[in-house]
């Protein structure tokens, strides 16, 4: 950390830059980490398992038909420039998000029109949904509230202030922007008298945080060892083992929600044959997947991650069983193997590549050849958006955006075709129907039953090899306190708000 006259500044070493900070345009782990720090939302996820906590909204209620939601805002909240956070600011922010139709818009746009948001009074805002939408609440923590006055002041040609908000902020969060050197470092400074106070105490709170871009894992590790960075993310599994032995360094190791699947193209090519898919699923050495992470992962026992609501383990999840694999292969169109299947992964994703190697090794037993093909992410997504170009096997990591089971289940809905996580082009009308029902159901018990059935059916159809849930890991100095894990955040993403330096 760095000492300044205002106090200690925490240094976070990360690999990913923040090109656009605007909360309604982009989100990824690094961007959202800073958004979360400079903006507030109506609600906030906290804890493990993640829970929705009131934030700008102190209380809320929903109508019996599940279509109307009313939120009562706190009266303390102030934007950084001193303006109060009003119902109008909330309305404007949601309207902005929906109208821009970027970033977070997809979460609500099918159920909420800009006209459906209304200001009841200064501190009460009402949402009228087009249809009941059970996961509605679970998305709200990602909708940050901007200060309409400031944004409008910087509007150019009716762009809703997009250009300005790219590297400026108009929020009410615990931090405000400091130095902003794209691709180098991003500094945020703690706000004096943050309306919600500081959990670590005003005395302990840091003066700010520097998010420093360090691209090379080796350099990250070096920076941590030298104390130039207080916390880093994205080290290799082997690095964590090494660095654990260094005195003064603590490893955070938590079970995450990111699922890994080898998605088959179920519509076209050899993998349209369910027997081949099953054969592959039974040939894979699942233990090796864990070994790739040096044990810091757990196998998936359902399409849903364990930490998600409605998760039920599926009993006959395939595990390595060569006899069974050969049995299935015999039933397929390729009883003796002898075919080559591509395995596509995102270029540069080490673990995906290694899993490819495991797959290659394992499928030799079935006389199936695997061609490991790394692709740029945009190309992979482009290819995966059409049945014709989607490869036979693609490795995909998916992090659900909320703890609501719909976030994962909907990936298996036919409407998701074209999205990268739906590269298997899974088509089971019964499953799609159940997903729709579960979305609209207002009672949790009804939904839970549906999701249990959905999980079983998906595993039976084997549209993908269900892999593992990797652990979320960070390495930080022991004087860094207040680290709070929440599985709903992205890999690497940290809640900077409660952290502080315990200076000796």
């Amino acid at each position, binding site marked *: 950390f760095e000492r300044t006259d205002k106090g200690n500044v925490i240094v976070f070493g990360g690999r990913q830059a923040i090109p656009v900070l605007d909360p309604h345009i982009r989100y990824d782990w690094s961007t959202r980490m800073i958004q979360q720090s400079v903006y507030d939302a109506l609600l906030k996820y906290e804890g493990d398992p993640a829970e929705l906590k009131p934030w700008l909204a102190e209380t809320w209620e929903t109508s019996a038909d599940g279509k109307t939601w009313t939120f009562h805002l706190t009266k303390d909240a102030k934007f950084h420039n001193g303006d109060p956070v009003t119902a109008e600011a909330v309305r404007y922010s949601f309207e902005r998000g929906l109208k821009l139709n970027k970033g977070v818009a997809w979460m609500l746009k099918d159920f909420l029109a800009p006209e459906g948001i209304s200001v009841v009074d200064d501190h009460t805002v009402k949402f009228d949904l087009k249809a009941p939408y059970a996961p509605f609440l679970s998305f709200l923590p990602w909708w940050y509230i901007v200060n309409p006055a400031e944004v409008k002041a910087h509007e150019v040609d009716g762009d809703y202030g997009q250009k300005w908000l790219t590297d400026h902020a108009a929020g009410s969060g615990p931090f405000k922007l400091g130095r902003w050197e794209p691709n180098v470092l991003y500094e945020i400074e703690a706000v004096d008298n943050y309306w919600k106070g500081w959990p670590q105490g005003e005395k302990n709170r840091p003066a700010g945080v520097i998010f420093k871009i360090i691209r090379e894992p080796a350099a990250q590790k070096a920076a941590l060892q030298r104390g130039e960075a207080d916390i880093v993310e994205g080290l290799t599994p082997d690095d964590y083992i090494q660095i654990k032995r260094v005195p003064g360094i603590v490893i955070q190791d938590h079970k995450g929600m990111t699922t890994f699947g080898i998605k088959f193209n179920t519509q076209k090519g050899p993998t349209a044959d369910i027997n081949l898919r099953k054969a592959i699923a039974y040939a894979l050495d699942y233990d090796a997947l864990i070994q790739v992470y040096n044990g810091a992962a757990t196998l998936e026992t359902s399409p849903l991650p364990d930490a998600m609501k409605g998760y039920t383990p599926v009993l006959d999840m395939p595990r390595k069983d060569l006899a069974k694999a050969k049995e299935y292969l015999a039933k397929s169109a390729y009883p003796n193997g002898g075919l080559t299947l591509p395995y596509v992964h995102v270029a540069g994703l080490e673990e995906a590549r290694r899993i490819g190697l495991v797959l290659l090794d394992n499928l030799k037993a079935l006389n199936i050849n695997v061609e490991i093909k*790394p692709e740029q992410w945009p190309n992979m997504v482009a290819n995966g958006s059409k049945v014709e170009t989607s490869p036979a096997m693609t490795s995909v990591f998916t992090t659900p955006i909320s703890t609501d089971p719909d976030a994962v289940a909907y990936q298996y809905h036919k409407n998701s075709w074209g999205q990268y996580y739906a590269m298997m082009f899974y088509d089971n009308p019964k499953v799609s129907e159940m997903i729709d029902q579960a979305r609209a159901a207002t009672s949790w018990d009804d939904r839970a039953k549906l999701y249990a059935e959905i999980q079983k059916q998906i595993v039976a159809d084997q549209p993908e090899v269900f892999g593992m849930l990797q652990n979320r890991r960070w390495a930080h100095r022991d004087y860094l306190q207040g680290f709070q894990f929440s599985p709903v955040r992205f890999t690497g993403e940290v809640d900077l708000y409660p952290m502080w330096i315990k200076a000796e």
Partner: protein
Amino acid sequence: MTTPMTSEAELSRPLSFRERHESQIRQWRLYAHMFRKSFSSMLGLGLVVVFLALAAFGPWLMPYPEAAGGAIDMANKLMPPGGAHWFGTDEMGADIFSRVIMGARTSLWIGLIITGIAALIGVPLGIVAGYRGGWPRAVIMRVTELFLAVPGLALALAIVAALGPGITNCVLALSLVWWPGYVRLVEAKALSVKEELFVESARSIGAKTPWILWHHILPNCLSPIIVKMSMDMGMAILSAASLGFIGLGAQPPAPEWGAMISVARTYMPDWWWYSLFPGAAIFLTVLGFNLLGDGLRDILDPRSRDR
């Protein structure tokens, strides 16, 4: 220079091979002599021969042939160099020694194809531009300058980024950016050779342009081309490895040194052997080809011949 005079009587009998090729033999002996004199040239030749041998006999030299194809052995991962694994093992437990040996083949192929394609495109264009002059020259040289104005690596990066990573695209991209160097070299050379009297002499006896290009211009451009190709072998290998390092070149499990380093760099201080050996292999190969090229230039380039 004195010329051996032979009596008429001796000349009437058929000449032996030795006698007929005395000049060539002398020439080669001179080359060999000059080459041997230079320590660095010999070092270069030695290195190149070693790597050529590795490429040729690699499959029989590898202790763990499966390692080259991406076999895994998670129990033995990241073992330091030792008796069983001379260069240690990588993060999947593959034998690095075997992979480095296989990498020689990949790398030499890459170098050969890139320089080969580049020369095949560049040399004819250069000869035409240098000899013909006029608008063909203007067009060819403009395009060449265009390519030369952007450093090859940057352009190759753009091409591979567009085509997608992988060894084929990487080779394609590098070949596409490599040929202009040959055009410029050959053009300059052809331009000066064209002014030589023997070209005019050939024209005066009625030789057609293709004849002149093939029999007079090309052979006289050959030594700088050979020298450049030798140097470029090394540079092409290095560039391909650089793309591999950025993550746009050859991709594992293909045993390519640059890609190996790209993975290995994250294991750098603690598992030093992982990146050390492929790095050293690149270094030594490129060094070998460059020293060889340098040595060849010393003996082939007429400017330094009369020493």
